[in-house]
């Protein structure tokens, strides 16, 4: 629709004039030699996009499955992803970099634009952007003034409501305030107790200030508070297809962010400073076996805060443009993660194995439960310098960039366990009536580890302007994912210690078990951005090859079968193609489509037990597909401007669920549709998702020999009313 094209163009122009956004790159990412997807306001509203999960599948080769909780959400781009610790995709919201991927999944009101950049962005954005970068920009009060509200009700007793007020006090100062709440009973029931185990409540507040301090200085500050409480983790047993576990599972999170951007513009260059503060306080409590049995539970409590500072200067002289910047950050995490072993777990995992080896002197634990305690303090800081040059020579554009990145990670840990068991003499009886000896297990160990990493991150690209609005490009860039410490491995460390107390000992070094080095990749890409037919047709295409080395994996050390360690043991490659199309043939029709294909495999991965070389990388889909057609019927009544009908189809798959490629789900599709009634001051969407009620999995894993999965959401229907009272 013409409205869509105009709104998209208006957005870009408006941003270039008055907003401080797009600090490090051009406001319109489609002019850059990078594979990108830009989702504008109207698409965001029509698709009901409030979080990045809703973008999954819209952008080719971008997949963010919905499983577990808002902490466990993982992003996969071109086959690269990470379930734990460091992410492969960076996230900026209004230029504020989010430092922890566990905080990536949240709902956001009034998103104006989402950019998904695929391929390494490490030269300009540094750590953990090996797979790409997501930029989210929210509506600016300098561009829009008025009152906006939304209310939505849908399947699963899901309710959302938000209100935002945008005011421009004078030509230089504007503010906006928004509040949002959402609740849902979810779509899953725990058969053990009948509880809604996908239920969620969340709320957020946001305050945005834009101040044109002078003709040369623009200042923007965005402060946000978000609260989330989920009864999550609706994992069903693959044996019974039932969600059935007896201990509490929930996730609670409180987050505070504040980002201050100051931009100074003069005739020769712009100088920007982005300062951010982030605080995260969360609690993940799990029935770790997800069975109706007393195995073990985990309660992970974390308090984390981070400061970042980015200083960027950009300028141009003739056909030469340059960017120079410096970045620094400090992040500190305090965490406790005790695992409570319960009666059945002690019996099955400890006593049974031990007594099979020695039935004449069996053991019995003296307590029904005991705790493996772990506390960590994890400070990380880093500094980086970067530069990028762009040279335009007629229709050729050459880009070269380099980043020097230094990072230091430390871990102060304490692992402790205080319990006991009794050895019985059963030489002459099978009953536990003759104690032989009592053994105390008193472990209290502390230590400190630290690592430093230095990375040089270059990139080169060349593009050719086929027309004034179409280009082809080639690029090569290096990306990297930080090293650090996997605190989840401390349960393995404590297990080794307890086995030592029982006379079974394996040699291990704590640093070897929990520490890992950076992962690196080289991305080679050819692509094109095409605009034609007066802007009515836009197409993007790219082919890529990624060589990923020193992949962070858990393995069993050579010659052992117990005690995993973190290591940089893997090498993978990912190659594929992606394409997207947007066609607005006339004022009524609009067509959008995207497709991504990724062939991501292990080149080299032996975990000490099995060799997975040649297997597909798990969890990342081979294909993503999206197609949507919408037709708008003008009504031109005073209370109704138009009715818009949209049909869409998303497809994802094949997905392999483990490194051995033994479990997989084929490609599946989901149908969506909506009818939108639109007028200047309101819009009412009646929508349906997964109208085909496709059965699919979003996650699969194995725990203590049992397979579990999370089912995707079933068919959902609902209605969303948006009110828009813009002041002129």
């Amino acid at each position: 629709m013409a409205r869509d094209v105009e709104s998209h163009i208006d957005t870009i122009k408006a941003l270039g004039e008055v907003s401080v956004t797009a600090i490090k790159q051009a406001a319109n990412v489609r002019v850059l030699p990078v594979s990108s997807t830009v989702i504008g306001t109207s698409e965001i509203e029509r698709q009901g996009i409030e979080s990045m999960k809703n973008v999954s599948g819209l952008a080719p080769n971008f997949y963010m499955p919905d499983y577990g909780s808002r902490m466990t959400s993982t992003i996969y781009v071109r086959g690269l992803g990470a379930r734990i610790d460091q992410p492969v995709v960076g996230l900026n919201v209004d230029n504020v970099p989010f430092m922890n991927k566990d905080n990536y999944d949240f709902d956001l009101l009034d998103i104006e634009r989402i950019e998904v950049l695929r391929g390494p962005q490490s030269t300009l954005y540094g750590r953990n952007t090996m797979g790409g970068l997501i930029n989210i920009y929210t509506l600016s009060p300098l561009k829009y003034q008025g009152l906006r509200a939304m209310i939505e009700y849908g399947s699963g007793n899901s309710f959302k409501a938000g209100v935002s007020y945008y005011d421009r006090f004078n030509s230089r100062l504007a503010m906006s305030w928004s509040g949002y709440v959402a609740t849902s009973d979810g779509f899953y029931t725990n058969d053990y107790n009948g509880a809604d185990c996908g239920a969620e409540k969340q709320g957020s507040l946001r305050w945005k200030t834009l101040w044109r301090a002078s003709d040369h200085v623009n200042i923007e500050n965005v402060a946000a508070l978000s609260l989330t409480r989920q009864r999550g983790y609706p994992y069903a047993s693959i044996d019974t297809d039932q969600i059935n576990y007896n201990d509490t599972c929930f996730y609670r999170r409180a987050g505070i962010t504040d980002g201050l951007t100051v931009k100074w513009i003069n005739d020769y260059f712009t100088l920007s400073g982005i300062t951010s503060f982030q605080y995260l306080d969360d609690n993940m409590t799990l029935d770790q076996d997800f069975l109706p049995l007393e195995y073990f539970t985990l309660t992970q409590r974390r308090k984390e805060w981070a400061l970042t500072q980015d200083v960027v200067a950009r300028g141009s002289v003739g056909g030469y443009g340059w960017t120079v910047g410096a970045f620094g950050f400090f992040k500190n995490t305090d965490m406790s993660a005790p695992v409570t072993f319960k009666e059945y777990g002690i019996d099955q995992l400890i006593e049974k194995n031990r007594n099979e080896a020695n039935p004449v002197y069996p053991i019995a634990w003296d307590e029904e439960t005991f705790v493996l305690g772990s506390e960590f303090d994890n400070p990380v800081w880093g500094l980086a310098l970067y530069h990028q040059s762009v040279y335009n020579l007629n229709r050729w554009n050459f880009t070269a960039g380099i980043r020097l990145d230094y990072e230091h990670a430390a871990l102060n840990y304490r692992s402790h366990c205080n319990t006991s068991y009794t050895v019985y003499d059963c030489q002459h009886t099978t009953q536990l009536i003759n104690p032989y000896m009592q053994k105390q297990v008193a472990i209290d160990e502390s230590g400190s580890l630290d690592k430093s990493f230095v990375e040089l991150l270059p990139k080169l690209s060349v593009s050719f302007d086929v027309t004034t609005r179409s280009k082809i490009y080639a690029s090569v860039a290096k990306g990297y994912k930080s090293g650090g410490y996997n605190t989840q491995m401390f349960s393995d460390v404590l297990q080794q210690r307890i086995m030592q107390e029982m006379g079974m000992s394996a040699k291990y070094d704590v640093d070897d078990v929990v520490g890992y080095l950076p992962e690196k990749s080289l991305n080679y890409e050819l692509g094109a951005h095409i605009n034609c037919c007066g802007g009515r047709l836009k197409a993007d295409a790219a082919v890529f090859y990624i060589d990923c080395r020193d992949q962070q994996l858990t393995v069993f050390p050579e010659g052992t079968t117990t005690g995993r360690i973190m290591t940089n043991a893997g090498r993978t490659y990912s190659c594929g193609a992606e394409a997207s199309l947007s066609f607005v043939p006339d004022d009524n029709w609009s067509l959008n489509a995207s497709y991504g294909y990724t062939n991501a495999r292990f080149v080299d991965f032996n975990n000490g037990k099995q060799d997975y070389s040649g297997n597909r990388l798990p969890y990342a889909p081979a294909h993503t597909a999206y197609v949507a057609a919408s037709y708008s019927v003008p009504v031109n009544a005073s209370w109704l401007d138009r009715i818009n009908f949209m049909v869409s189809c998303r497809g994802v798959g094949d997905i392999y669920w483990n490194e051995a490629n033994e479990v997989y789900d084929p490609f599946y599709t989901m149908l969506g549709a909506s009818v939108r009634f639109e007028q200047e001051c309101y819009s009412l969407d009646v929508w349906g998702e997964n109208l085909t009620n496709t059965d699919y999995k979003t996650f699969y894993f194995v725990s203590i020999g049992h397979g579990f999965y999370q089912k995707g959401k079933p068919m959902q229907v609902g209605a969303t009313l948006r009110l828009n009272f813009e002041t002129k």
Partner: protein
Amino acid sequence: MKALKSLMCFVALFAMMSCDNDDPIIKSVIEYYNCFNLVENQPANTSATFDSPHYVITQDHVTGEASVLMKNVKFAERMPAIDMLVKGLRYSTDKETGALLITGSEIVPVVDGKPYEDFVVTTFRCEIRDYGLAYLPDMSIVYTVNNVFRVTVIPTLTYFYGTTTVVNNTNQSVYETTDPVYKVVINPKGMTANITLHQARFAASMPPMNMVFKGVNVTPYNSGYDLKCDSLIPEIGDVPYPQYQVTNLVGVENFLNNMKLDFDCMGVYSVSAKLNSWPIVNQE
């Protein structure tokens, strides 16, 4: 193998009369007290063992001489234990092995500050291998007194390392590993030994274990000692494991610093270990 030195105790090797790092070392001292004496009465063709001797070997780098203070030594049952100082020993380096040799002959020791002519150290030989500040010495001491008593000093605590080969008798598969460390602790009073196998494993799929074989019979010789036990129940974590019964244990240790140890386990595994020794000269 070198890494195993990290398991060993450090040597009490210190410089006397020199506190400044830049000053040359004037004297070097080694103390050896985890040991017992095997005393052979050569004319009578009898032998006896006496525990808890203590040897302090001093090298004087100024004079080029060495001395040995032998504490709590005796050569016959009815003889009281004495401390005697043997001075005037020479030290040199064995050109073939690089070992430090301390030798002497026909030396009248000093007891209570006076020459003690009742016992003449007819011959004395102490060999120290890998001697140096960074290394744990591998040491042997043999001496004769009055040409009658031949004394061999045998360590009571020794760590052995090397290659352990395991044959699974049910399928004849062979598993080889260099991970296990063998600790032999000899009780000279009862002439038995406890052998601890650290990181013992008889198959790749087995978790490593610390197994203790208690009450192994020890027969000392002037060239080493034998270990023997027909059957024992090993302990793991201080708990007997009858299923892992050990049978036919035979070990031969010689003072060329190697040992061969063979035994069967569970009636399934035949274990053969070829090892080298690092005797511990100080208390753990």
